[in-house]
Every structure is written in C-alpha cells, then in structure tokens.
C-alpha cells in the first residue's frame, strides 16, 4: 500500500500540488486522472522522489520514503517499476539488454537466467522476436510494451505508469491497459497510473482519483464515476459534444 499525506509542492509562486492525501491499495490499479497541467505527473514524480516535495509524507507499506537517506531510497527504488511517458528505453541498448539491465545490476542471476527472465517478461507483454532490435527500430506501442517488460523484470512491489497510452491508437491503448491490469492482479502489486484517457478509467480503474485545480477533487472507482455528483468531474468526462448529447438523451 502507498499512502500520501498532505503533499504540497510549489514551483516558484505556483502551487502545483495542494495538500494531497490519498491511499493506494495493493493488487489494485489506482488511476489518477485530470486535465493537462493539473499536476498529475508532478505528483507522481513527488511520490517516487524524482521531484522534491515541500511538505507531506509518502509511505510505502508504512516506510517513510521522503525521510530516508539517499542509499535507503535507492534500495527502496529497487522495489519500484516505472513506465515513463516516452518509454525512456536506453537508446544504446537492445530490447533484451534494456530488460536485463536492472537484473544484471542488482541480482546474482546468471546471463542465461537473465535472458530467460527477459523472454518471460516479453512474453507477458506479447512481444516476440524483438530481443535484438534497438528502441529506434520498434514502434511506439512496442516501446511502451518493452518499457512495461523492463519495469516488471525485477518483480517490483510497486508499479508507476505515467500516461501509458499517450500517443497510441485506441486498440493498442486497450492492450496496454489490459497488460497493466493483468500484471497488477497476477503479481499482486500496487499500481498507480496517471492518465487522462477515459477508456483506461472504464477498463481498469479499480480506484480513481480526480485532480482538479491542483488538488484532490473526487475519489471513487469506475463503477461510481459516471454517476458522480461532481460538476468538474462530469465536465472532464463528458468533454465532447457527442458525449454531452448522449448524456442529455439519457436524462442525466
């Protein structure tokens, strides 16, 4: 479980995260949604320590991450898998080398075991015969899947995904969402996904947190979100004219 307590973050005069508190449970896909610029990615980076918070606590199963020493933080990060918005695959390494990198760095696995694990993870994300290709030689969707494979290779306890569907077509987006959901359930990890894709919310949103005006505005799940009594949330969901008309026809 990951708990956030009163997280605040400023960039100069701009208050980008206002008193954010929330709990994210193990074995569930927790989605943080909101408009562009609402502070979702900053919040995610605060959680993992890539951005320094001004005040507040981040607890990983009760362990106070922000008050840890650098070495302790490094050790805890070995339990974290992260999928970056652009994939952040290492350009100079092949797909296979990307996946085995954290294993070669922090485990005593033999090269054969590392390759076996890489193939297992690639299988999980439905990729075959790409081991020796470089990131520049594969498509955007494949990059995302390789990034997921790399994130799960060291068997993390926590998985963070920053807009996993950005730049992908709807069909591939659903595949990626399903992958994240399956991995979360199968390995019983705590997953936090940053997104503004409503398809993702309806597919995998075990828990949904809506950020508006740099603060937590609504909290619920995919079953309650459409009937929520929250104007800003509904404006966010029913953003297109088509959806608004559809909703009006349904009399909501």
């Amino acid at each position: 479980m990951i708990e956030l307590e009163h997280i605040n973050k400023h960039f100069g005069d701009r208050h980008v995260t206002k008193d954010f508190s929330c709990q994210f449970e193990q074995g569930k896909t927790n989605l943080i949604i909101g408009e562009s610029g609402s502070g979702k990615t900053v919040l995610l980076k605060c959680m993992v320590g890539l951005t320094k918070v001004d005040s507040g606590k981040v607890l990983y199963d009760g362990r106070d991450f922000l008050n840890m020493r650098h070495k302790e933080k490094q050790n805890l990060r070995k339990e974290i898998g992260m999928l970056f918005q652009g994939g952040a695959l290492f350009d100079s390494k092949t797909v296979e080398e990307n996946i085995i990198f954290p294993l070669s760095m922090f485990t005593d696995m033999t090269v054969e075991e590392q390759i076996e694990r890489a193939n297992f993870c690639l299988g999980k994300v439905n990729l075959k015969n790409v081991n020796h290709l470089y990131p520049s030689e594969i498509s955007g969707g494949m990059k995302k899947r390789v990034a997921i494979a790399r994130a799960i290779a060291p068997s993390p306890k926590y998985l963070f995904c920053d807009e996993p569907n950005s730049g992908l077509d709807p069909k591939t987006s659903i595949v990626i969402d399903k992958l994240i959901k399956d991995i979360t359930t199968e390995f019983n990890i705590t997953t936090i996904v940053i997104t503004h894709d409503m398809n993702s919310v309806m597919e995998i949103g075990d828990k949904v947190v809506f950020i508006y005006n740099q603060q937590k505005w609504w909290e619920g799940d995919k079953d309650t979100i459409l009937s929520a009594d929250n104007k800003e949330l509904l404006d966010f969901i029913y953003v297109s004219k088509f959806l608004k008309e559809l909703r009006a026809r349904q009399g909501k």
Partner: protein
Amino acid sequence: MMTRVFSKPEKMSVYRNEFLFEIENLGLNSLSIVSIISLFMGAVITIQAAYGFNNPWVPLYAVGVTTRDSTILEFSPTIVSLVLAGKVGSNVASEIGTMRVTEQIDALEMMGVNSSSFLTLPKVLACMVINPFLIIISMFLGIFGGWALGLLSHVITSYQYIYGIQFEFIPFNVTSALIKTVVFAFIIVSVSAYHGYHTEGGALEVGRSSTKAVVYCSILILIFDFVLAKLLLVQA
C-alpha cells in the same frame, strides 16, 4: 555530484563492461582523427622550423629538435586534447544530455542506480587510461610526419632529422606530457558529463550543453596547460 560519481559502484562487472565499451567508443574511435592531425601537425612544424632556421649559424638538425620538443611538450598533449575536447566532449555532453531530456536518467534513478556514477565514472576512467596511449601514438606520428614531409620537400636530410630528434633528449618531457594528458582527459569527460547531466529542456538545450561543454573544456585545458607546464617543467 563528484562525491556521487566516485562512490562505490553497485556492481563492478557492469561498470567494467561499460569501461571497456567506453575505451572503444571514446578512445579507439578517436584514433583516426588523432593520427591525421598528428601527421600534419608534425609536418607543418618541420616546414615552419626549417623556414625559421634558414640561417647559416643555426644547424639544420635544430629542425628535428624543434619538431620533437614542440610535438612532445605541447602539440600532442595539448592540441590533440583540444581536438578531443571537441570530439569526445561534445559526444559525452550530448549523449548524457539526451538521456536527461528523454527521462533515461530518471529511469536509471528509478531502478536504484547511481546515475551520475554509472554515466560518468566509466567514461572518465576510460579516457584517463586510453588518452595517454593516443598521445604516445600522436607523438610518434607527429615526429614521423615531420620526417616524411622534411624529406619530401627537401628541407632536411634524414640523417640530420634523426640526429636532431635524438639530440639532448629529455625523457621526462614525455612523462610530463602524459601527466598533462591524464589531467586533460579528466577535465574533458567530467566537465562534459556535468553539462550533459544538468541539461533541462529539449533538443535546443542539449545542443547548448554540448557547446558549453566544449568551450569550458577548451578554456580549462589551456589554463591547466599553463599551470602544469609551470609545475612540471620548472621543477624539472
């Protein structure tokens, strides 16, 4: 940042592989440019020395002495290091800068890797090890270039040139050149890595970091060239 760069590596075998890769990437891949520059540098020194010593009171073997000392003391360690600051420095700064703006460094940090050490230490050590070899090759090629062009252009005979390059040779000059080379190698990689690591923004900023790295490296090399020349040669 330097404390983190020189902290204990997470896994020695991974760092050793990176070190060997950088030996080839930053060192051996610079061999062709170093060779071309050194050959022409030696040739030009010989021609200019012969032109300057066109005086019956100055023995012709002085051309060999001048080519040898200029090449060993200054041209090979300093000029070649300045060229390497352009080639290796911009390579290191742009590579690390691109990794920064594409979140690859964040990805390393998220894996629990000490990114500053992982990205910098193998490169620094590789350059400090391989650059002295490059400079020794450069010295030989510079002196060879002087001999070859001296003969081709008939400004000096082979005997006079070879006599000149052996005349009152001080082996410590080579040692001092290699000490300078090691210091310059450290400057080239550490300064470039610093600028790359602290890049913020996009492609434009990566370009700026790369340019800044080359400029700072060049200035620092010239300053340290003066300081080391004073320290090493005055004491010698």
